[in-house]
């Protein structure tokens, strides 16, 4: 039940009555009339209990895009229901319109469209549907709130997919028509062809040349079916915002680009999100299925405000992989976290695997380092230089373990990581 403004207004106007007829009976009679009006409205208003709800529409939406969810309102009662309907969603679902007028005749159904423009990644669940049906006098209304469950998963935006075609072209240079002439650990024999000017003389296959009249070279191509393990650190360092985006979202973007690229290159990609326990894991996904399952796994991830457990992460990783693989650790070059957590465990990892650490640098630190003018700016610059020096030292330490380090600002981290992967692939180091 709900009252309307009209009732309050009427009651206010009724205050003039006792000025004309100053008696208790005036007031009591007036109140009686109001009460009767309210009762009549409640009796005659549309029966909101007889409404049934069904939902359909989008279940997945990429962050930054709009989703449409349809609510079908079915009137199972015997009377027409005219009402105001509100489809209640959490604020970050960005639902619009806020309220809709519905008019459902008995035994029929009407559709109510709600457009969602989510502002955050993750699962958004509908809270419920509220219907308010005002009686014919407009004094009181029947109101009912009922759940109508639906879930829309807001997926990472993956803005770096615009880099994908460029990186794929580079990849084709390595594999397809353009054949690598460099021979390394991670390459396999591809074919023999005639020597042309510029080919490395070391790749001439003398035995084949002897059989034929021309000089023949061997060509190599990067080995396929290498294994790549992407590890997302969802601990406290991933919560820090770079610009207005959490570091975790930048890391996800880079991981998605690398995953897409690597799966096209024929490598197998696995994903692990870890802080003190496994938050998400994608393993053994087929090439076509990889990206959707990665995106689905990443969608509900939120940074946890706890220190990541590097030992747990390494053991979770080592227990799953037997063959040599490329471990891409997407984390932050935080001296305390890395030096105390990861560094002592690196030898275990590097003994069998190739390790790459990708970190998102904060452009704000660069800005501060360039600050000049007054004393505050100079102290800012000093603090920023100090932070950069720490980062450099950490990078050097990691490299001394044979770890590849990619350290780039948020808008460059994804292509930089892809480039690092391509370089490894071209060098046959995978």
């Amino acid at each position, binding site marked *: 039940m709900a009252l309307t403004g009209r009732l309050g207004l009427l009651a206010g106007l*009724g205050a003039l009555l006792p000025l004309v007829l100053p008696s208790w009976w005036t007031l009591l009679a007036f109140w009686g009339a109001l009460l009767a009006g309210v009762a009549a409205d409640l009796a005659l208003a549309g029966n909101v209990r007889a409404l049934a709800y069904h939902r359909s529409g989008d279940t997945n939406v990429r962050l930054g895009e709009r989703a449409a969810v349809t609510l079908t309102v079915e009137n199972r009662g015997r009377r027409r229901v005219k009402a105001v309907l509100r489809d209640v969603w959490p604020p970050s679902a960005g639902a619009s319109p806020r309220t809709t007028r519905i008019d459902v005749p008995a035994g029929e159904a009407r559709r109510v469209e709600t457009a969602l423009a989510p502002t955050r990644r993750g699962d958004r669940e509908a809270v419920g549907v509220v219907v308010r049906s005002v009686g014919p006098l407009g004094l009181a209304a029947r109101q009912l709130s009922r759940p109508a469950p639906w879930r829309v998963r807001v997926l990472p935006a993956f803005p770096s997919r615009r880099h994908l075609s460029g990186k794929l072209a580079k990849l084709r240079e390595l594999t397809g028509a353009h054949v690598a002439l460099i021979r390394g650990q991670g390459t396999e024999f591809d074919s023999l062809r005639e020597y042309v000017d510029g080919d490395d003389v070391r790749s001439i296959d003398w035995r084949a040349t002897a059989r034929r009249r021309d000089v023949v070279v061997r060509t190599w191509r990067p080995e396929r079916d290498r294994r790549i393990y992407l590890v997302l650190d969802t601990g406290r360092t991933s919560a*820090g915002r770079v610009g207005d985006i959490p570091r975790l979202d930048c890391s996800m973007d880079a991981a998605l680009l690398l995953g897409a690229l690597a799966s096209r290159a024929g490598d197998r990609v696995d994903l692990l999100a870890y802080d003190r326990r496994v938050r998400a894991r994608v393993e053994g996904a087929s090439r076509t299925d990889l990206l959707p399952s990665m995106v689905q796994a990443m969608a509900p991830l939120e940074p946890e405000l706890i220190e990541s457990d590097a030992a747990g992460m390494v053991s979770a990783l080592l227990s799953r992989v037997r063959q040599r693989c490329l471990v891409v650790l997407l984390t932050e070059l935080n001296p305390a976290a890395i030096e105390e957590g990861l560094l002592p465990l690196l030898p275990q990892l590097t003994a069998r695997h190739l390790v790459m650490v990708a970190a998102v640098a904060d452009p704000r630190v660069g800005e501060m380092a360039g600050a000049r003018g007054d004393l505050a700016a100079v102290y800012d610059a000093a603090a920023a230089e100090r932070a950069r020096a720490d980062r450099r030292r950490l990078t050097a330490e990691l490299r001394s373990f044979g770890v590849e380090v990619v350290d780039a600002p948020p808008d460059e981290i994804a292509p930089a990581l892809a480039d690092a992967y391509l370089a490894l692939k071209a060098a046959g180091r995978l």
Partner: protein
Amino acid sequence: MVISETTARQVAGRRWRSSRGVLLVVLALAALALALAALRPGGTAQDLDPTSPSDGGTRALAEILKQRGVRLDVARRAGDAAARATPGGTLVVTRTDRLTPTDLGTLQETTANLVLVTPDRHALESLAPGVRRAEPSFEETDVPGCALPAAVAAGRVEFGQAQTYEVPSGATRCYVGDRFPRLVEIADGGRTVTVLGSAAPLVNRSLAEEGNAALAMNLVGARPHVVWLIPDLPEPGAEGGERSLGDLLPFGVKLFFLELIVAVALAALWRSRRLGPVVAEALPVVVRSAETVEGRSRLYRAHRARDRAAEALRAGARERLVALLGLPRGAAADPEAAPQIVAAVAARTGRDEPFVGEALYGPEPVDDAALVRLTDLLDDLERQVRQS
């Protein structure tokens, strides 16, 4: 510029239009307040007080009366005055606006002759039956024009602005300006009641004017004993007739307010019923990544850590210089390589080596200005190396 000018004018116009109503109301209120203040009867606590030497007091009159051997009692309460008044004496009643109905009843019962100075309507009704207030007179002075001995003896008297009175037949009418008298004497039972329409003839300020003193002496000091009543403000509730606001309001108005309260309650119920619940949502923490760096900067500043700040800035500059000069990567952090770096920078920039050494490896800056200068110097060196 044209656009911004018109915009500014539009903004000003809009502000004027939106605020002029309020301004008008405020001005009207101020004018009303001024008018009310001007219309309010003037007067201070000391007016007509026989002990007050101020302009409005009547101490001069009291002194003259004393010299003439008239006994003057000052009473501050009506009951007091009635008790002291002797039959055949004079009771001067001033400031009648402070008298309660009970006070007036007490005064009515005395047998002393009354002199009422500018009495209000209630005092006139109970103490001078038949006399009613007429229009005020603005004529300053007047001649008696009657046979009253006191007035005849005084002759021309200055009244200033005075109240005039309608009187019953048989009363003595003196100082009749246009139509109505300013001084009235009537016989009420066994006593005479004199009503004076202005305090001017009595007060210190104008006692010396015209025949004022004579009129005052003759009116007040005609008999050997005078009680001068100048009442204090009555105590609230002392009258017993005080009634609360509730007693004064008509029943219909009370019901009106009751119904208004009901209406407000209904409106509150209307507004408080939401269309659906408030949705609570767990929001992610917002931590800026650079916060630790900014915090360190503030710590440096708070503790004036010029040594650490300078070292950090120098290390950063050395790191970039080493890269520009093509020296080994580890050289920047290696003290052994210092002379080599200094020499290389000096050679590239054309500055002398001690100067460059001071900039890159010097001691802590002596003050904040030196730290800022050092930063600029490092920037200069770096730029020169880059451009050379």
